[in-house]
């Protein structure tokens, strides 16, 4: 079957439990509608399609759900990841402090050129805010990564955050392609290219 997209990016959401990662990725949903079946077994990952500068990009987004202690997230989880969203909760100081530990974990286990971005989630909860916006920005500057405050619940900045991360990965990849044209495209897939079963990590998820 012909390829109908230009890039495929694997993204991870990382952060303490309770910071709303699930909501960031898995847009806030009203459980009342849902049968208990899906919420009981839980969601493993999602595929989303976005368009950036005329290119069709498939995002494969994974949440750490259920294994969010640093020591349980190791190399296997990071394998193939091209972007990581580090999420804390602006009402939870501890989750902010832990971002540094998460970054250390990433440096230890993930590929060194993975794109990172810090998100301060729950910015709809300003009355309970424990971490100022400035501190978030400062931390991001310290690590040389981008920063955004988001509200998964109110739908603020969530899509922009994914677009920003995807744009940075795409730019990085295009740079790489430009400087090492002989290496071929790794994960860049040309339209109508015949499907190759062996191509890197493409869709080898299950």
């Amino acid at each position, binding site marked *: *079957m012909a390829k*109908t997209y230009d890039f495929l990016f694997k993204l991870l959401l990382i952060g303490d439990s309770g910071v709303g990662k699930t909501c960031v990725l898995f847009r806030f949903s009203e459980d009342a*509608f*849902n049968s*208990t*079946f899906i919420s009981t077994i839980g*969601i493993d990952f999602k595929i*989303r399609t976005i368009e950036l500068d005329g290119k069709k990009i498939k995002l494969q987004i994974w949440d750490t759900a259920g294994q969010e202690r640093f020591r349980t997230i190791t190399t296997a989880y990071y394998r193939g990841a091209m972007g990581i969203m580090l999420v804390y909760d602006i009402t939870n100081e501890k989750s902010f402090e832990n971002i540094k530990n998460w970054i250390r974990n990433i440096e230890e286990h993930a590929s060194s050129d993975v794109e990172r971005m810090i998100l301060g989630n729950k910015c709809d909860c300003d009355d309970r805010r424990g971490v100022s916006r400035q501190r978030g920005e400062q931390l991001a500057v310290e690590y040389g990564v981008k920063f955004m405050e988001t509200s998964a619940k109110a739908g603020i900045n969530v899509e922009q955050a994914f677009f920003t991360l995807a744009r940075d990965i795409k730019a990085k990849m295009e740079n790489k392609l430009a400087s090492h044209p002989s290496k071929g495209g790794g994960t860049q897939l040309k339209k109508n290219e015949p499907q190759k079963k062996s191509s890197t990590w493409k*869709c080898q998820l*299950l």
Partner: protein
Amino acid sequence: MEPSNPEDHVGSSTGENSNQMPISDDVKALLTDARTNNKSVCCERCDSVVLKAGDASLSQVEFFLPHMKKKTENQRPGDGETLREFWLVGDMCTFENVGFSNTVETTKYLTCADCEVGPIGWCDVRDRTKFYVAVDRVSHK
């Protein structure tokens, strides 16, 4: 020989030979000549696009899926129905937007990526080339 008037047999199939199950007119109306979906496959609750037109083909297999909606007060999570018409996709990256549940035995259930309603379909982790979306559990636009 196939019966000439398929609608007489809708719902009466035993499913023992999936190739010969008649296709209802409702489903026929969703097909191109090549048996692919002639419209986009969308979430029936939030309209999120699951598959674009032409990206899937009709497959008649029998598979039991737990209910999406709570039908009765004493419904248990595993209660459901056997479905027989599915949109079949050969590569998970063909999906526009979709969620994959954690694995139950060898099954991953598919959900809407936006509102998470589901199961709208399934796949078997032992076969990475077959992903099924239940025709009955999505809308076509």
